[in-house]
């Protein structure tokens, strides 16, 4: 993608402000508007990075608890030289919860693997929640085009779970 050389550079001071040399934009932003724009982006960045950190810490803690519970219930898993092979837990026929109903039953029985699946679920939900926070942030900053774009992404994401039949 090359820049046509016959067009004036809007960054150049000789171009009058408000000139429509840059296509698709209403006009050049003034320095104050640029600063306000950057301030908005900073706030959104902070909200999003906070959501990601909370999601990550929460899910890794739940997964850790689940692993602990699993090893506590199955003493034979923890020996270093025992006869129990990990392959009994990683074969295609290994039972583990993979519907929400099974997950609920497994959690009700206090099974470690159920708690781990719950933690993984929280991990999967983190990016979705991040998109939701994006929608709210863009609306709050009155950036309607970006809010609509992000809302579309959120709908597709939620739809993907319904389509999968979770």
């Amino acid at each position, binding site marked *: *993608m090359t*820049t046509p050389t016959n067009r004036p*550079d*809007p*960054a150049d001071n000789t171009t009058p402000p408000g000139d429509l040399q*840059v*296509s*698709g934009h209403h006009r050049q932003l003034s320095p104050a508007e640029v600063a306000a724009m950057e301030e908005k982006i900073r706030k*959104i*960045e902070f909200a*999003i*990075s906070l959501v*990601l*950190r909370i999601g*990550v810490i929460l*899910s*890794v803690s739940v*997964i850790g608890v*689940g*692993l602990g519970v699993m*090893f506590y219930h*199955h003493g034979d*898993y*923890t*020996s270093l030289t*025992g006869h*129990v092979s*990990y392959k009994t837990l*990683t074969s*295609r026929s*290994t039972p*583990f*919860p*993979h*519907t929400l109903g099974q997950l609920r039953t497994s959690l009700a029985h206090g099974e470690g*693997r159920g708690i*781990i*699946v719950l*933690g*993984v*679920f929280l*991990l*999967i*939900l*983190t*990016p*979705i929640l*991040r*998109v939701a926070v994006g929608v709210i942030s863009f609306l709050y900053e009155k950036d309607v*085009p*970006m809010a609509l*774009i*992000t809302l579309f*992404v959120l709908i*597709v*994401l939620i739809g*993907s*779970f319904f389509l*999968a039949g*979770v």
Partner: protein
Amino acid sequence: MTPLLFVVSLALISVAAGVLGSLVGLGGGVVIVPVLTLVYGVNIRLAIGASIVSVIATSSGAAAAYVRERMTNLRAGMFLEVATTTGAVSGAYLATLLPERFLFAFFGVVLAYSSVITYRKRHEDHLLTVSHDRIANYFNLHGSYYDAAEGREITYKVAGTRLGLFLMYIAGLVSALLGIGSGALKVPAMDSAMHLPMKVSTATSNFMIGVTAAASAGVYFIRGQIDPIIAAPVAAGVLLGATFGARVLGRITSRTIRLLFVGVLVIISLEMLQKGLLP
């Protein structure tokens, strides 16, 4: 090997996968899938399920830091997610229609080509000071970041959004179809087609791959491909590694990141060609 040894060793490997994945913007799946299938003899379907978990973990773990350090182009990332999520959802339902071997062979060739392109322009970021791209200007997708390796603020303009959107759709499609390769197409799309700086491209790819993976995670969950005893050490290890990787990206030069990316891309393309061409 007992379950405890399995969990501990896999967690350690996952830390390394998280560091590499967060630096090059590809997620940890590149390392996790071959390790699980070749070293541990895990079924490929379960390995791909673990890969999806590792991609989400790399993305969320690294993005938390990248976004804070302004390395990610948030607006461009969220804008392009329109194409990746749509691609991922359509891919999940095309999976039964398209022959997998052909897809592996085809994308093996595509990635080999894009690794050559990336290698040939390893010396420079070809940044724009002005953009005539209507979409990029309308949504104001341009940005700037502080490059710690060069010690200065770098401002850049975004162009080529149409081509970028198309490549992102393909990236989402491939991610859902093959379980790998989503970041491998996202980084060149931003670096080459849209003129983002290399480090911004990998950080933004990192930001996006979690959402792309989440769009197909529901399907993998229902199909019973997310095995908790594999997912637990992978998620925990990758999160730790990605958090560390995100801290060092700023201090590494773009050239090093690009070479690292090319190396990983060559390996993925060979893996794909092998799956597509060998019996």
